């Protein structure tokens, strides 16, 4: 079980790192789908499968919402605003730094929240860290929503071990779906002359 959990932590590292590096929205949504599979697995270590499946279903619904909306948005509208250096090497380098920080910090976090397991903590911290990094590098609606969904999925993987209320699960699902809907709204919002 532990080895599988570590593999899943590795998977979320690859997917969240991929989200940071990739610039193809289809690939990004695919990676996000895989990421939710990982989050589902990490959550299922503390929740019953039927309840953990909420994370997977909600995540995939959010992806579907974003994907359908993104299909109808012109390609040129993306990639206009850049806050930081955007080179691929730079992003890989910063992702590497965040990963090293997470690996260093995970045992200390395990001391604060004992009984969750290092793989779950590492996986969720990787998601939160790389999601935050993603948010720090962009103000493009699509990428901001991907970053927020990544941060929240990391938090949810961790929080599932602490809180097993159905209401909380439902409310967090609402937040995830709401974020996807807001993302869809922001993607379609534009000045009248920009309309297709």
């Amino acid at each position, binding site marked *: 079980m532990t080895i599988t959990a570590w593999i899943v932590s590795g998977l979320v590292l690859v997917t969240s790192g991929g989200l940071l590096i990739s610039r193809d929205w289809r690939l990004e949504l695919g990676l996000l789908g895989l990421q939710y599979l990982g989050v589902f697995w990490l959550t299922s270590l503390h929740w019953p499968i039927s309840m953990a499946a909420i994370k997977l279903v909600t995540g995939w619904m959010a992806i579907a919402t974003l994907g359908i909306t993104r299909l109808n948005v012109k390609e040129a509208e993306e990639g206009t605003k850049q806050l930081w250096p955007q080179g691929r090497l730079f992003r890989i380098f910063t992702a590497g730094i965040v990963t090293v920080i997470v690996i260093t910090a995970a045992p200390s976090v395990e001391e604060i929240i004992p009984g969750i397991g290092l793989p779950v903590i590492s996986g969720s911290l990787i998601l939160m860290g790389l999601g935050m990094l993603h948010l720090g590098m962009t103000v493009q609606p699509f990428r901001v929503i991907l970053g927020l969904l990544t941060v929240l999925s990391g938090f949810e993987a961790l*929080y599932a071990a602490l809180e097993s209320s159905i*209401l909380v699960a439902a*409310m967090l699902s609402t937040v995830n779906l*709401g974020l996807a809907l*807001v993302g869809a709204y922001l993607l379609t919002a534009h*000045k009248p002359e920009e309309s297709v």
Partner: protein
Amino acid sequence: MSAPLLWIILPAALAIPALLIHNRRILSIFGGSLAVLLGLIALILPIDQALQVGSFSFKIAPDIEILGRRLILTPADGSLLAIFYGLVAVWLFGGEVTGTAHRLTPLGLMVVALLVASIAVEPFLYAAILIEIAVLLAVPLLLPLNQAPGPGVMRFLIYQTLGMPFILFAGWLLAGVESSPGDLALAVQSAIILGLGFAFLLAMFPLYIWLPMLADEVSPYALGFLFWVLPTITIIFGMGFLDRYSWLRTSAQLSQTLSLGGLLMVITGGLWSAFQRHLSRQMAYAVIAETGFSLLAFNLSPEKAVDAVFLLIIPRSLALLVWAMSLTQLKEQVESLRFSTVQGLARKHPVTTAGLILAHLSVAGFPLLAGFPIRLALWEGLASQSLGVAFWFLVGVLGLLTGATRTLAVLVMAPQGSGWEIHERWGPGIMIGIGVISLFLLGIFPQILRPVMANLPAMFEHLGK
């Protein structure tokens, strides 16, 4: 009939058909009347008390159960509901003249219902999720579909969303502190995480970068509404934490942190306002300073602190209402709200200009205006504790006053020989006029708020006792 059904579910449910109404006037009257009705019911009918009307007897039950958790509005919440819905009504009535009713009425009602739910939910920690859902609804409220989202909107979404995980996690840690009060390290960790959560939600120094950016991008009226409603509920939510955890309430470090955070917000908000050349951004900096005043109010003696925080609510709402309405009127006349484009507008829009300046002065705590009595009480209370804090408080207030004076100078700076050409619209002019009169009334007779404010501290079991 239960209280959560009446003050949470009913407005949220009625907001859905309101989405289908396209007539601005009908929407505004519908939303405003509903809020007035809910406010009056909260004022007149006590919660959880049997009432007899002729042969008909009824009682508003305090709670409702959803998925094993409760939404509960106690009799002590009645005053807050009355004030809250009363102020919301004024904002919604103003939606028609500012052209925002089609978004403000349905989405505003939903946001308000969710924020009231955040006060009512038990365990109270879940309020963080409800506030987050309200923030998500605020995005279409701020940004119409025909406007591209700017960095301000995106940062608003990011910063407000990041607050939720911190608060939920801190709540879990605080439960641990409750069970092992001797664990100092855990207490410090939970306080830091909780502080970070509230710093994000309240846009505390230095996490308020998005506020002026957002003010630059969206409708001043919708923004003013959110600038009032979100921090107000977040502060009440924060007071819930202080009420619940005695070690947090009595912590000297927390008191110092709040004092420092509040002071930094007052100083920076005031100083940036003094040097700002954009009218909307000036409102944003004033909002930053306002939040700073609320944080500083926690530094007063326990029995005064709760009163002071509540006394800030109505003047804040009223000043922001007049300010946002005036800005909306000016924005209709000019391309941008930069100083260079609004020069001399006072000659064409005297009432709007008066509203703008007086609202700004009220936030700065100018004598005879609504903000003055509470600023004075706050300043006096802080001075009795530390003269240094009182001095820096004055610096922030002077910054706000300088901003107001510069705005006034720019607005009256018409070319020599140009006469008065009044282009004021009746509807907004009357509303701004009533707002200005109310600012003076609250400034001259602050005691008129006493009857409704007196019961508010009863919302908390320990805080302020």
